[in-house]
């Protein structure tokens, strides 16, 4: 039977369109089905959301031909300071520092606002078929592929359906893929802050007893704050006016950047770990949060999603060039084996880090301070930590090395 598309991707956020571009660039016929109306999100002003792109993610965006337009909007991360902290006390005595000067290959990463990344991906959707304002609401495996039913009554035939539809992935549910995970009982408060003094490209990750606080440099004298709090407290803080919010944030933030003020709306996101028990099912693959919703510590959520994209695109394009049916199990199994171990250990690792640090036990606190000082003192270990956080460790897919497929 003739197929309408090689791949139908459910989900029009960031990861789905990125996968679409990678596949279309290698000659596959791709449709991205996005329940949101066309380009709605790109027309919004700055909404406070920003991503810490790992070096590998940035190289991938370059390989997809998007980085030239994004570079002027991005803020290189030149230094990362991770420290144990307590409101009003500032940093622990031995913060862990990662410095770009110690790493081969440029900045540790790049901060990029959602509005720019989303718009860049949307701007390239003319390379594939974008079906906007419509959701995938059914899927049915056939001997030669999968039939994908849309909410407007249309039916698309494809070799493979990819679920890039988030933590509550409908594609996964319909494929019978179960999930494991738990609620952290934490909520992330996200806001953009303008400050008096330059950040000099430094990202701060402070581990407070109630949850981590990240201060991530944006272009100009602005930073993105990701403040994780116990959910009850976060809900109360979210209801505060801007002045009261700043009044609570300031002592945690410290005064090293001078006076601070809000420069965009505030958002809050409940945090939870949710791992799909399988990344693949017959004629189905999951990417991004649909496969693994992780704690946003170290900004790894989007980076892990882009690693999925790079690995899946490489596996599918290779299979296509071997003449294989790209939706077959032995092809999808290669993707699952490549990504699953990495994503699960990363997810559980961040979970463990969060649990260790979200604690005010004085013994644990002392152990953390010593541990961080030790890691900080040992150059190679520190660089290995930073490379993992920058996404350049392990068997990297070609796109993550900046190479075309």
């Amino acid at each position: 039977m003739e197929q309408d598309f090689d791949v139908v991707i459910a989900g029009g956020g960031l990861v789905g369109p990125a996968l679409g571009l990678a596949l279309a660039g290698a000659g596959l016929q791709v449709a991205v089905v996005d329940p949101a109306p066309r380009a709605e999100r790109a027309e919004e002003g700055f909404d406070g959301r920003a991503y810490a792109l790992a070096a590998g993610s940035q190289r991938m965006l370059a390989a997809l031909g998007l980085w030239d337009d994004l570079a002027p909007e991005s803020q290189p991360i030149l230094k990362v300071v991770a420290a144990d902290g307590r409101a009003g006390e500032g940093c622990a005595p031995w913060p862990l520092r990662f410095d770009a000067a110690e790493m081969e290959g440029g900045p540790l990463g790049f901060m990029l606002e959602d509005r720019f990344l989303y718009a860049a991906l949307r701007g390239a959707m003319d390379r594939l078929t974008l079906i906007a304002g419509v959701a995938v609401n059914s899927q049915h495996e056939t001997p030669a592929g999968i039939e994908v039913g849309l909410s407007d009554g249309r039916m698309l035939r494809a070799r493979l359906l990819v679920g890039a539809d988030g933590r509550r992935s409908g594609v996964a549910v319909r494929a019978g893929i179960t999930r494991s995970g738990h609620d952290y009982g934490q909520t992330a408060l996200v806001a953009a802050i303008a400050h008096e003094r330059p950040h000099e490209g430094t990202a701060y990750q402070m581990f407070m007893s109630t949850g981590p606080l990240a201060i991530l440099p944006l272009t100009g004298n602005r930073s993105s704050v990701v403040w994780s709090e116990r959910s009850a407290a976060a809900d109360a803080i979210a209801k505060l006016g801007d002045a009261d919010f700043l009044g609570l944030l300031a002592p945690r933030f410290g005064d090293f950047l001078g006076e601070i003020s809000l420069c965009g709306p505030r958002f809050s996101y409940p945090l939870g770990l949710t791992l799909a028990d399988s990344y693949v099912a017959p004629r189905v693959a999951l990417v991004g949060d649909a496969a693994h919703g992780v704690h946003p510590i170290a900004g790894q959520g989007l980076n892990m999603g882009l690693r999925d994209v790079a690995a899946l695109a490489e596996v599918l394009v290779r299979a296509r060039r071997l003449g294989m049916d790209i939706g077959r199990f032995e092809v999808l199994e290669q993707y699952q084996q490549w990504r699953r171990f990495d994503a699960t250990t990363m997810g559980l690792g961040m979970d463990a880090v969060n649990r260790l640090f979200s604690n005010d036990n004085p013994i644990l606190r002392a152990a953390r301070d010593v541990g961080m000082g030790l890691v900080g003192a040992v150059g190679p270990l520190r660089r290995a930590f930073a490379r993992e956080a920058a996404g350049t460790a392990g068997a990297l897919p070609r796109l993550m090395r900046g190479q075309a497929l």
Partner: protein
Amino acid sequence: MPGEQPTNTVDPAEVAKFEAMAAEWWDPNGKFRPLHMMNPCRLEYITTQIAAHFGRDLKAERPFEGLRLLDIGCGGGLLSEPMARLGAIVVGADAAARNIPVARIHAEQQGLPIDYRNTTAEALAADGEVFDVVLNMEVIEHVADPQAFLTTCHGLLRTGGLMLCSTLNRNPKSFAMAIVGAEYVMRWLPKGTHEWQKFITPDELYDLIRKAGLEPVDRRGMVFNPITWGWSLSPRDLSVNYVTASVRR
């Protein structure tokens, strides 16, 4: 015309049976799982050698467009289908009659035009058929007279044509891996699938190929890695499974 058989009188029960058999051939967890696991590695060698020999670009939409290819011992079409997808004009031949409708039904489901025939290499050669490429994969260890068989393959190739031939080496390791391991321990293959005495060393195969009038141009091992649970090509380790490329000058 009186007496002509209508072409559509296919017994539905027969079709259902063949559909079930096709599903079995192509079931990634079924009895042909070992072949499916090995297939990407076999295809990597086949596609690379054909592309190099005929100057084709594997990044093209249909790189093998116009090449006439024979898949001897096509089974359910595990190699015929990828070759057709890459643009080759494929004849799939199998001496086992029951494989043919099975392969046909699967190719039809995939929308691939493949000419499957219940025939032998000898019969095709006798009919004067010639091909640009002959795939002779995991076949030679099952034939009665390998030398005669390779001479037939020579006759099936046009001048400048390419033959790809894979088989199993004969040594204690291949006995342990292919027969004891694959057939008895892992139960990957039915017991009695292989007779170790019929296995051929790479040097013996090169001799047979030369005597058949072909020129061997390349050989690689196909090695199973129990850590990654996958197969890969090796330029050095031909100790168990290996594959060769030969040209009719």
